[in-house]
């Protein structure tokens, strides 16, 4: 079995299992291409990720390994326990998503870059949750944005969206 090494932008290496790597579609397709051209090999596959920092990569890998473990549990356990397991997974995901807005931003970018659909769904849900029901000013405050629109422009946009606002 080939080893997969993901290298963060600061040079730190992380070895992950093929099973966990299969959740990252970008890595999975790299692996596929490699095997198609060179056949089965034991040389480690080193994937440099210049735009993912070490701590975000760790977080992403934590997600992949844990989801993998949950998947195995799901297939192994009887139907009666599935509901309980689903609750357990949801609780874990909830805990996992307790991150700062800054971390969430890096996580969603990494999930997008590595193409981890399930993590991406989780992140976009969390993002949506953070802007839901908030006024423009509150969203700016939450994400630390400086207003790029003049008050007149903002008012104009608000007016054109009045139908959706009440």
């Amino acid at each position, binding site marked *: 079995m080939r080893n997969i090494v993901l290298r963060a932008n600061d040079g730190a290496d992380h070895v992950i299992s093929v099973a966990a790597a299969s959740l990252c579609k970008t890595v999975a397709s790299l692996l596929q291409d490699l095997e198609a051209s060179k056949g089965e090999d034991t040389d480690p596959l080193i994937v440099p990720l210049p735009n993912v920092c070490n701590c975000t990569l760790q977080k992403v890998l934590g997600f992949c390994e844990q989801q993998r473990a949950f998947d195995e549990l799901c297939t192994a356990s009887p139907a009666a326990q599935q509901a309980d397991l689903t609750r357990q997974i949801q609780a874990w995901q909830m805990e996992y998503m307790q991150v700062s*807005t*800054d971390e969430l*931003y890096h996580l*969603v*970018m990494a999930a*997008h870059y590595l193409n981890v659909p399930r993590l*991406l769904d989780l992140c*976009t*849900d969390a*993002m*949506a949750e953070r*802007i*839901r*029901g*908030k*006024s*423009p000013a509150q*969203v*700016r405050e939450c*994400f*630390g*944005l*400086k*207003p*790029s*629109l003049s008050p007149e422009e*903002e008012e104009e*946009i*608000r007016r054109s*969206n009045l*139908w*959706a*606002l009440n």
Partner: protein
Amino acid sequence: MELSALPDALVERILFICDVQTIANAAAVSRSLQRVASSESLWLRICQQQFTDTDPRQWHHAQASGRMHQTYRSVYRLLSSHEHSIGLWRHSKAEQGLLLELYWDSDCIAGTELLYENMWTPPQKTPFSKIGPNGQVVPEPLGMKQLVIHKFAAPHVRPPSRAAESAAAVACFGSSPPSEALLGSSPASSFEQEMLRFMQSNVAGSRQGRRRSKGSPGQGGVQRRAVEVLHLERVLRPVPSRRHPMAGLWKADYGPGGVQIVLISYDFTGPAARIVGVKVTGDDHVPAGKHTWHAQAAPMKQPWSSKEAALVDMQGQLLDQRADNSDDAVAAHKRVVAIYEGKGRIAALGYAESTWVEGRLWEYSDGACGFLWLNTMFDYMLVQLERIDADIRQHPD
């Protein structure tokens, strides 16, 4: 900066799972968010997700070929404002009544009016005006229960009025010779045309009073008067259940009164539960919207008395009699499995002298039912009922 630095595709993904109110708020956060929040791709996806029974692209196309530039955001507005029209409606005013079903078609809301000529052939389905993006038929929901449909005449360019024409001609006199032919055929952006347009809106407009109607979508701010207005009332189709086995829409054979649509529901407001039949379409005697009969929800105890048994035995005779009096085929004799004591409405022409007479609701072994009027003054009358669920596209509410 974080949110704005995300690629548009990701922002769109995030906004896609938000409600429209959140999207509207997000649009005013920053320029980049505003761009994504009003993008065509986002609103097309939202339209497609929310309106699966119609094709938003066709609405968009039809709208775009009209007067103004259209976006999927406006298509969304149009679709969501029209959404309330979907369903079964009855005419709340006319005596004759009307059962109308409005449903999504790929590029409009289509409608059919259900009419039964007899009990054994499928209903006559008259197409109703299409409610579509061209704004010629505009639905206006009043809450969930009522709908007003405005039909407008096809939009056409009004010829310039005499007053405007002569005013423009006088105004243009200095620049070119005022000949009517020249005025009418001047190039679109010429001074003469501009003057004509100006005079048109001022001379003619002052008489009309240029109030802009508070635009329902698709009206484009053009003042129009509806040529036809239809007030409809929603028909909530009761779902048959174990407690309400007969609830639903039925067709009923009233003999000389024709085949009419009856809505059967259960009424628990009185001291004893009742089964109530209300006319959705009516006749000259008992109009649409009135109760035609009611019966106790609890069946009579078996074995039935000899009087009830004798009535049940009369079924064949009553049906034969009906067939003798008309060209109708003899209806099949059905086995009665339950009897409900009740009252049937009779009335003279124009719903005059309306009274209740003794009646019986019979439940048949095939799930259908019949109501027997025990009118001692005249003949007994048996009205057979059959469910019409198969003739309606939508599932019960």
